[in-house]
């Protein structure tokens, strides 16, 4: 017996502290997070709740811009102020209490109005990875959105208004390699086996196997063999439900009864896998359009690595790939003996490595044409790109200024509002209260004694907005009453919900993993429902 030694790979304290999240976005995701520099405009409850879920996982640095002083109202809804802090600068108090959560995070406080910054310090925002803004009047929001859009800095607008929450992501272009799709189809290439796979499969003969071997053949072999039989008979792989049912029957016919009388598990797995494993190998339409865009791009020294790799991938698909993406190189688990399963797994892996190598060569060629580049693309970048090729995502955003100009899809608004359950009505209401605020310098229902008059005034705002979009007065009075009831109240549980969601959207943007909303999310706590709209 060996004596236990000192741990050779004992984790650092940091790895232990972040263990539960490192299992989701990996060490490389964590590294991106730790390099990020986040700016929050206004340390309201929604603002501090957003920062909280960024400070805890260890974002690099935060800056709070806020010229407000702590009021009793803040004490009532904001966890990051305390009783002693009334009258002190809110951003300073919040920053102190937020940083106390995690000593790894650095922070700064700027006691200035954002309007002033926008007027006098045009480059103020350039160091930031992402800006989060809340509680801004429409005019300030529009100026900020324009500055950040032009500077290509992602902006997250977050808001809690009574029982309604709102998140808007403004980002010109966002590319995702690791989108982590939830239910992936396996990439087995049974309809177009690569030579090494074909050679190995053809070397196996199910008929002559003894019973132990037969019941331990991985199902990918069973499907391959059955497909050959099928193709001989019908000429093409099964396509529809009925053909697949027949195919399953054919698999079943190949099954032997075990001595114990039980069915062979590997054959049962094969039957279950028919639906997902026999899908024709093809390029998902979303990836296809990314490749087409990449193909038509002219590379310049400022082209981002994603698009260089996408162009190389397109070249691969049209040449060595013969119309298909690189082999992914991972296969599902299958009941099997170790030897065959691992052999087959290695065949897929080797092919994946070979395909990635072709893409890498093309990346290097393209890079050379561009001369010396600042951002190097490494072999492991290309490998990750190829492994995730089927799940690449690109979001093309729109600026808030553009959205507010009315260039949103107007037909959709009318159609959505006809649906009594559409959350879009709350978007319209939020836009309307902002117009109300521009006009009357207060939100509707803000003062207890003006709720009734404000209902009438808000209705005018709503209908004017609808008329601008070419819609009739189709919003029910109920929604107007409810908005006036809220009086712009920022209720903590709504702020906490939106803060949690928004923090994760920021993490998606920072790490380029998972897929951000595109582009407006409405949360309705009345019914505990939500919806996302592309506006």
């Amino acid at each position, binding site marked *: *017996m060996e*004596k*236990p030694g000192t*741990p*050779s790979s004992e*984790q650092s*304290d940091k790895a232990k*502290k972040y*263990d*539960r*999240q*490192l*299992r989701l976005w990996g060490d490389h995701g964590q590294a991106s997070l730790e390099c990020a520099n986040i700016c929050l405009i206004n340390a309201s409850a929604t603002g501090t*709740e957003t920062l*909280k*879920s960024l400070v*805890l*996982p260890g974002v690099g640095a935060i800056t709070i811009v806020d010229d407000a002083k702590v009021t*009793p*109202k803040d*004490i*009532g809804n904001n*966890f990051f102020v305390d*009783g002693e802090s*009334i009258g002190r600068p809110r951003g300073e108090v919040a920053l102190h209490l937020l940083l106390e959560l995690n000593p790894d995070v650095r922070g700064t406080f700027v006691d200035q109005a954002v309007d002033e910054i926008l007027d006098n310090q045009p480059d103020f925002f350039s160091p930031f990875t992402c800006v989060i803004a809340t509680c801004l009047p429409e005019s300030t929001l529009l100026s900020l959105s324009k500055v950040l859009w032009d500077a290509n800095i992602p902006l997250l607008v977050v808001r809690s208004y009574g*029982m309604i929450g709102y998140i808007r992501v403004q980002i010109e272009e966002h590319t995702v390699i690791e*989108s*982590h*799709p939830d239910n992936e189809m396996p990439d087995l290439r049974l309809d177009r086996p690569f030579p090494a796979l074909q050679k190995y499969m053809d070397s196996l003969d199910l008929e002559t196997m003894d019973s132990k071997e037969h019941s*331990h053949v991985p199902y990918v072999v069973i499907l391959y063999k059955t497909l050959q039989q099928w193709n001989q008979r019908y000429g093409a792989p099964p396509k529809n439900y009925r053909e697949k049912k027949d195919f399953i029957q054919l698999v079943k016919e190949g099954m032997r009864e075990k001595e114990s009388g039980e069915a062979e598990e590997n054959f049962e797995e094969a039957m279950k896998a028919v639906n997902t494993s026999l899908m024709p190998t093809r390029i998902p339409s979303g990836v296809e359009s990314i490749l087409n865009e990449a193909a038509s791009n002219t590379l310049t020294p400022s082209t981002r690595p994603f698009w260089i790799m996408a162009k190389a991938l397109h070249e691969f698909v049209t040449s060595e790939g013969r119309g298909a993406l690189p082999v992914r190189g991972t296969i599902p688990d299958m*009941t*099997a*003996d*170790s030897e065959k399963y*691992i052999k087959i797994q*290695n065949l897929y892996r080797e092919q994946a490595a070979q395909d990635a190598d072709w893409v890498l060569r093309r990346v290097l060629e393209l890079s050379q044409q561009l001369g010396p580049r600042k951002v190097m693309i490494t072999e492991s970048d290309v490998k990750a790109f190829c492994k995730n090729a089927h799940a690449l995502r690109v979001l093309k955003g729109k600026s808030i200024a553009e959205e507010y100009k009315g260039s949103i899809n107007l037909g959709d608004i009318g159609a959505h509002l006809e649906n009594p359950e559409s959350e879009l009505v709350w978007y319209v209401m939020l836009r309307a209260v902002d117009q109300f605020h521009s006009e009357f310098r207060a939100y509707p229902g803000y003062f207890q004694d003006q709720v009734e008059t404000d209902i009438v005034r808000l209705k005018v705002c709503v209908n004017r907005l609808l008329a601008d979009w070419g819609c009739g007065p189709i919003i029910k009075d109920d929604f107007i009453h*409810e908005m006036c*009831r*809220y*009086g712009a*109240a920022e*209720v*903590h*549980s709504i702020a*906490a*919900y939106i*803060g949690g*969601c928004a*923090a*994760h*959207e920021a993490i998606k943007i920072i790490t380029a993993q*998972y*897929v*951000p909303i595109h582009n407006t999310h409405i949360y309705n*706590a*009345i*019914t*505990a*429902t939500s919806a*996302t709209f592309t506006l």
Partner: protein
Amino acid sequence: MTAVDWGERWSEVRKLLERPGPFTHPDFEPSPDTLKMLQENIKVLVIGAGGLGCELLKDLALMGFTDLHVIDMDTIDLSNLNRQFLFRKKDIGRPKADVAAEFINQRIQGCRVTPYYNKIQDFDDDFYRGFHLVVCGLDSIVARRWINGMLLSLLCYEDGMLDQSSVIPIIDGGTEGFKGNARVILPGLTSCIECTLDLFPPQVNFPLCTIAHTPRLPEHCIEYVRILLWPKENPFGEDVAIDGDDPQHINWIYEKAQKRGAEYGISGVTYRLTQGVVKRIIPAVASTNAVIAAACASEVFKLATSACTPMNNYCVFNDIDGIYTYTYEHEKKEECMACSQVPQNLEVRLTDKLKDIITMLTESFKFQMKSPGLQAMVDGRTKSLYLHSPASIEEKLRPNLKKTIEELGLADGMEIAVADVTSPTTILFKLKIIE
């Protein structure tokens, strides 16, 4: 003691409580008294002071609740700090409930959180009857089922009619990575935890023969070391069980698993994976916990104040690709073992052995029990069939496991009382002989 009032302090929730609105519960009456009631009369129990529990305490305290109680049997670990925001490095090793309560009480003036460093099973029905609402932020299904059973056992029926005042709502949240769910349970009225047992399929273990003879995945190699090699080699002495928090233990497993992987050509055994498999770690982030706890807190607020109709009744959340939620009414199961008031049939053959029945109770999706003990009612007397403890009784009853229903003298229609950790009360089954 009332909450310290700095004039406008509660102005935001007061707008919801003092103004009428079209989406309020029909019972709602706008009044300044509601906030007072929330602060002075409503007693809320939060179960769990972990990822959800920390958030829940903060959320509820800032929604105006002042009489909060929290139960948690755990102490603080370094790996909690990425999300359990009431804890700091200096608190490691201390009870979660105590530290969480201290922090909230210190930060939010007027709020009184009472901590219990206990298991939920340490308290009886009188304790639970004292709360108006129970919020669960648990990671254990057994604990959820137990508290569900406890609150169901508090229901009073008169002539078959449920006395509504005996209903204590449960607001239950759960998270895993970027997914979560929040639900509202009105015991006796809406679907309960047991009604939806099929949403929590029993954990799948790798077959032993795969682990022993045909490993294919790095996980198989780790399980081989954990299950087969550890008890054989006892690397840290006889009877030293694996401690997932001891880096030396994990490291030993990791190195042996790596060796086994190399033998079979299996790559991918890492220290992190080893720890994940041994401790059955579920990934967790701050954001999902914040979202689900907030959704639960909103429901607590709605139920306590009627300022809005409560969620009906189950909501799932996922923010992997965009932000997705789906809210629907999960229906009450007509023959629910816990809440239906319908006698449960236990279908058996005369030739079935007692151990087959125990296997059925543990393995079927419908029951998913852990270690059921069985007693039969024969001629008005209780006859123990099998009990796990005390050891002397277990030993005496063990031979029964191999006896058939017939040999045990059981017959159609007889009542069997089953006790299990998943429920605070015994469940009565009626034997139904089939074939």
